């Protein structure tokens, strides 16, 4: 017995097993970090969004358009379970797609047990929208600030529209507290992601123009302070962000 345990070969095997177990534990640990990563994948209908270069079909009319800038605020991120809601502090995130790296938001979560829904707003809630305090990505001297009397732009899309050789600018600046929209998406996770979640969301620019109301850029190439127009586009952007479907499957690996 004694002989057996002290035999060099057996000791080596035992050590090996110990190291392997340690590595497995470490591997499991790195598999379950306490973080939530939300990655946003931008599309225009079925095509990936490429700023400046690419030309897309007007979703609800004649002509073609390109996008020079597209940004929006995603705010008040919440993780909802049956008996609790975790709210991220100062959660105002400017989402934009002009970086080579994918647009990802990373959060620490205290516990994700039982969390089944991710909730967030498009825009800025009225309390923050009427404040000059810089928090999160809110910046009263930023590009999304309108002026302190009006608050923030919630969704900004600027670009160009062309039809039969005629070019027009596209300027959609939609804000106003009444146009703050809340979106909920299910947080389905494989069983082994107990402590972490990787959420892939699809942002469809086309939805701005056709989700609920048709907004034809051939007629309405700009929306700013007209409350009626702003409300129509806001009803549409309530559907701007959805769980990834097969469109972004390629981008998911």
């Amino acid at each position, binding site marked *: 017995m004694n002989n057996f345990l002290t035999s060099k070969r057996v000791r080596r095997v035992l050590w090996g097993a110990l190291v392997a177990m340690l590595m497995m534990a470490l591997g499991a640990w790195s598999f379950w970090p306490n973080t939530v990563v939300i990655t946003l994948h931008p599309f225009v209908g079925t095509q990936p969004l490429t700023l400046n270069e690419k030309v897309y079909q007007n979703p609800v009319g004649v002509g073609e358009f390109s996008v020079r800038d597209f940004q929006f605020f995603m705010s008040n991120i919440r993780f909802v379970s049956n008996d609790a809601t975790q709210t991220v502090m100062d959660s105002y995130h400017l989402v934009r797609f002009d970086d080579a790296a994918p647009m990802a938001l990373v959060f620490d979560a205290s516990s994700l047990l039982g969390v089944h829904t991710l909730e967030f707003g498009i825009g800025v809630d009225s309390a923050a929208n009427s404040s000059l305090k810089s928090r999160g990505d809110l910046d009263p*001297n*930023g*590009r999304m*600030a*309108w002026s302190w009397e009006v608050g923030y732009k919630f969704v900004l899309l600027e670009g160009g529209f062309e039809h039969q050789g005629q070019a027009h600018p596209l300027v959609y600046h939609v804000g106003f507290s009444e146009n703050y929209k809340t979106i909920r998406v299910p947080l389905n996770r494989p069983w082994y992601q107990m402590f972490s979640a990787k959420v892939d969301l699809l942002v469809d620019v086309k939805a701005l123009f056709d989700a609920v109301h048709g907004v034809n850029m051939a007629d309405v190439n700009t929306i*700013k302070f007209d409350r009626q127009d702003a409300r129509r586009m806001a009803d549409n952007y309530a559907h701007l962000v959805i769980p990834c479907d097969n469109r972004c499957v390629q981008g998911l690996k």
Partner: protein
Amino acid sequence: MFRTLVTTTSVAGICIGLFGCKQEPLTATPLKDFEAPFVFGHFQVPADNALTVERVALGRLLFYDPILSKNNQVSCASCHQQARAFADGKHTSVGVSGKPLAFNSMSLVNLLWGPQHFFWDGRAKSLEAQALVPIQHPDEMGQDLDILVKELSTHAEYPSLFAAAYGDISPQHIAAALASFQRTLISANSRYDQYLRGEITLTDQEELGRKLFMAHPDAKASQRGGNCIDCHSQFVTAGFSTRLDGFSNNGLDVEADLKPGLAAVTGKPEHRGLFKVPSLRNIAVTAPYMHDGRFATLAQVLAHYNSGIEPSTTLSPLIVEANNQVSDTAGAISLNLSESEQQAIIAFLHTLTDTDFLTNPAFSDPFNRAQDATAQVSKDAR
């Protein structure tokens, strides 16, 4: 409305055996009375160049000292004069070679806010990186950095000042000191600031101008505006600090004449003709205007924005689209502001003049003791 921003980081004298010991600064007095309006928002000072009294004082001396130039005749202040909000009043600047530069001098104000890329085309990524450019530029100061370090090392006063501020004399420490001084150039007591703090009211004309400045026009919603805020932020009045959002093409040139601008830095065709959106603080004293000094007066600037826009592929869509009239002749780009509305915007721009800033003794020429003394006297008399 004001809060004091105390820089807490003191200068750490770290000495790691493996990497050799860095000379430590002898003294490090954190800058205490450093304050800015909270409406300017967040700012960042590089961790390795925390603001200290010693660094700012050294930077001020260097800024005003012609020793930085090859012929010992040109200082930073030759082209950045306090009374002109640190611009120089020239069409384009002239330095040691006497050959006019390609660009109009830039006002140095509130540099902690707004785009954190410096120069008209954004080619310097920090104030530290910026400072070594004019020193070596053959037409600006034409100085060799090694020679400059030697000159400063044999100077009667600089060695001890550098020792106190940074430990030793090096091109990096010269740049860091200049950057520190420039970060303290804060203008926050114009009539506009006093209005924001609720201390005064603006005249009717200034107030109309303020409203027009702060609004993008929407003829459909009967909202009149000059759309300035589309690019010049509401409080800082400079371009936006996020990424390259503070660069724009404001319609100075037609396609064929577009200069590279930001594209010289990024190489992207969509950045051709984009320039840094400058701060408009003290704009009434920084004429002539634009990167090439093409406009002599604010009236000319307003005439440009109202009806002088040149079309090009990279022109801001916000400028193309901004119009105070519902319908216009196809293709014409015009704000269609009335004469009195343009005058009102000019009146508002004048509320951005901050005489405290233009005469603040802390920013003045430290070698000009007479001027320093009178400034001190006039301050005491107040």
